[in-house]
Each structure stands twice: as structure tokens, then as C-alpha cells.
């Protein structure tokens, strides 16, 4: 098997193992030393590095945008899209005027494999695995839903207290190192202005809250921006998204990622559910990766551009 030697020969139209994605990250850094660096923000329960790619043209602690993919490990199209986004950012800087303007003032952070233990497990043991891989004391069931483990309405309705459930919240907020590492990083950075967490599937763009029906104070702006983002997304292949707050659009979910980030003061907090062909769920065929990433990129650009043009 010939390993790709650079990111140009990396095949974005197929799914990759975790080691291939780690190699991709290192290649991207090596090829773009003045733009891309790799930060290890922590370790997973099983000791895998939690890598974040930082795209920066300089400055200190610039206002920043966060993108993460793959917190639910079995949603492979998200890690694959994250890989594509990383290459896109590196390629478009200096070519695309909107992205260049953003990167001249802001940094972008991309965590491609947010739940590496789970991702490894999906490749090697159980393709259906969604949670982390930390054992739960007193239970034979393993793992926590890392999208119910955040300190935002933690333990409320819309998450399970049963370790065998797919939505098990964990023993306490931020019990999972995969979550705690992001929490610590976001807090220590202190200057994130947008936070986008990407899931699949069901074609939705959501903003807080999930744990309460109380609208966020920026609801009108987040709603309008979501509308713009999904309109841009649909312009490519006609993929139709729904949008709104989590609790009004899907269901009540406590301990969710973007509820926490919003409560930290990150106004532009969104979560995606990527495309659904209606036949495959999250077992999306590899030929769907690039179209999914391409259309999602348009929505991401809408959010990033708005964040750039509306400093707060």
C-alpha cells in the first residue's frame, strides 16, 4: 500500500483510518509551516493525542474560530469533511479573498478527530460506536456520550444516566478527557468568537439552547445567520437544511457542546448535522464525502465571514 507523501496525493474521496488522518495533519503542517501548526490539547482516555490544527498568519491570541468534527465517532463523514476543510483552508489562503481577509485578522482551529478512541474502535471493533471509550465504574457498559458531558444543564432532561445508553452523560460534567481538553483550551485561549461542532446526519444547522426553552439573547442574529448559511449551502447541490435552536428543532438535549460554548460568551455557537441521502444514515458512501464537505464549506464560510465582519 502506497502511503500518500503529501496532502496533494491524499485521497479525500475515501474514508481514512486514524493513523492516516494523523499523518495527513503532520503533512499539512510540514507543507505550510507559516500557516499551519499542530497543537496537542490533551490525550484521550486511551492515550491518543487530541490534535488541533491551528491556522494562523501571526499575531498573539487573535480572535479565533473553532471547528470540530467527529465527536460522535461513527459519523465518519464528519472526520472526512474535517480533513477536507483543513486542506481547503490551507489551499485557499491567499487565493480566496474572503478567507484571506479572515485569516489576516483571525485564527482558525480545527479538531478533526475529536473522539479518537471511539474512531479507532469504529475501524477495528464496532463500526456503530458513538461514545468515548472510558469504562464506567460499576457497569459493564463503556463510554460516555461526549455531547452530553458538558457543563450546560448537565444531568437534566435529554441525556441518560444509564451507562448503557447511547446518550449517557457521564458521572459528572467534563468527566471525559476529550471534552475537558477542549474546555481547558477554550478557557485558556479566551478569545474564541465562533465555535462550530459538526455531526451527521439529518441536515440541520442548530444554535443554542438544547437544555432549555429559554431563547438565547442573540437568537434573532443567530437565526438570520443560520438562514444565510443554509441558503449558501443549498446553492451547490440543493441540499435542504432545517435550522433553529436545538430544543425547538430536534429535542431537549442537556450537557451539549454549544450550549456550554455559548454560555462561555462565544456568541456564534453552532452545530451541524450533515447531509442524509435518505438511504444510508451515517454510513454514507465515500462518494458522498466531497460533495458533503463542499456544500458544508459554503455554510462554514458564511458563519466565519459574519463572525469576522461583526466583531464583539
Amino acid at each position, binding site marked *: 500500500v502506497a502511503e500518500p507523501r503529501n496532502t496533494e496525493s491524499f485521497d479525500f474521496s*475515501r474514508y481514512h483510518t486514524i493513523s492516516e488522518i494523523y499523518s495527513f495533519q503532520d503533512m499539512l503542517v510540514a507543507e505550510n509551516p507559516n500557516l499551519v501548526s499542530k497543537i496537542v490539547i490533551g490525550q484521550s482516555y486511551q492515550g491518543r493525542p487530541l490534535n488541533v490544527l491551528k491556522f494562523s498568519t501571526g499575531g498573539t491570541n487573535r480572535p479565533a474560530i473553532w471547528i470540530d468534527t467527529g465527536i460522535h465517532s461513527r459519523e465518519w463523514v464528519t472526520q472526512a469533511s474535517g480533513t477536507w476543510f483543513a486542506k481547503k483552508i490551507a489551499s485557499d489562503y491567499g487565493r480566496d479573498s474572503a478567507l484571506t481577509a479572515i485569516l489576516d485578522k483571525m485564527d482558525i482551529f480545527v479538531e478533526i478527530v475529536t473522539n479518537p478512541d471511539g474512531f479507532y474502535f469504529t475501524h477495528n471493533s*464496532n*463500526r456503530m460506536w458513538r461514545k468515548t471509550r472510558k469504562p464506567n465504574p460499576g457497569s459493564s457498559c463503556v463510554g460516555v456520550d461526549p455531547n452530553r458531558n458538558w457543563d450546560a444543564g448537565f444531568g437534566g432532561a435529554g441525556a441518560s444516566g444509564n451507562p448503557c445508553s447511547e446518550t449517557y452523560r457521564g458521572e459528572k460534567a467534563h468527566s471525559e478527557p476529550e471534552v475537558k481538553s477542549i474546555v481547558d483550551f477554550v478557557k485558556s485561549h479566551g478569545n474564541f468568537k465562533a465555535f462550530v461542532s459538526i455531526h451527521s446526519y439529518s441536515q440541520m444547522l442548530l444554535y443554542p439552547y438544547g437544555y432549555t426553552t429559554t431563547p438565547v439573547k442573540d437568537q434573532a442574529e443567530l437565526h438570520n445567520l443560520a438562514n444565510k448559511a443554509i441558503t449558501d449551502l443549498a446553492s451547490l447541490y440543493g441540499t435542504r437544511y432545517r435550522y433553529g435552536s436545538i430544543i425547538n428543532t*430536534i*429535542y431537549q438535549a442537556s450537557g451539549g457542546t454549544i450550549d456550554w460554548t455559548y454560555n462561555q460568551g462565544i456568541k456564534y455557537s453552532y452545530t451541524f448535522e450533515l447531509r442524509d441521502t435518505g438511504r*444510508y*444514515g*451515517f454510513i454514507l*458512501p465515500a462518494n458522498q464525502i466531497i460533495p458533503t464537505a463542499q456544500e458544508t464549506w459554503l455554510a462554514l464560510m458564511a458563519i466565519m465571514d459574519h463572525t469576522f465582519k461583526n466583531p464583539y
Partner: protein
Amino acid sequence: KETFEGHQVLRITAKDEAQLALIKDMEEMVHLQLDFWRGVTDVATPVDVRVPFHSLQSVKRHLESLELEYLVMIQDLQVMLDEEKLEMESAAR
């Protein structure tokens, strides 16, 4: 390695809020080992659930007894996973 021979993914559609609540109740039926890929949201949005082979008959009977409409979205999950694996290996070659 865990395999999924005979597991099906069913797409269930509710006609009204009452039927939606009946589907929601199924989330609590732990013994069936259902894996909700797309949970209960609203009447307009179907629910997708992976059903292990050993629960298929019970689940289908249950759905039919409640007059809940469903279709088989994925006939045999392992067949799809095998195709996915082959495709990855082929691309790697």
C-alpha cells in the same frame, strides 16, 4: 470484531403526536437493544432505528400492532459495512 448480520435500519413515520409518543416509548425498551440513529423529533421527521436481528420480529410486530408505518431503510447492515470495507481496501490498493 462485532458484526451486524441481519441488523436492519427501520425508518418509522408517525402520523400524529400520539404516534410520536409511542415511538418515543420504544427508546425505553432496553431489552430490544435498539440504536436510535435519528431520534424522535416531530411528525414531519422520520425516526431511524437500528434493530438487531434477534429483535426484528418483536419490533416489527410491535410497530404493526400500533399501526405505525415503517420501511426498511437498510436491509442488512453488515452487507453495507462489508461494501464499505471493500471500498476502503480497494481505494488503498
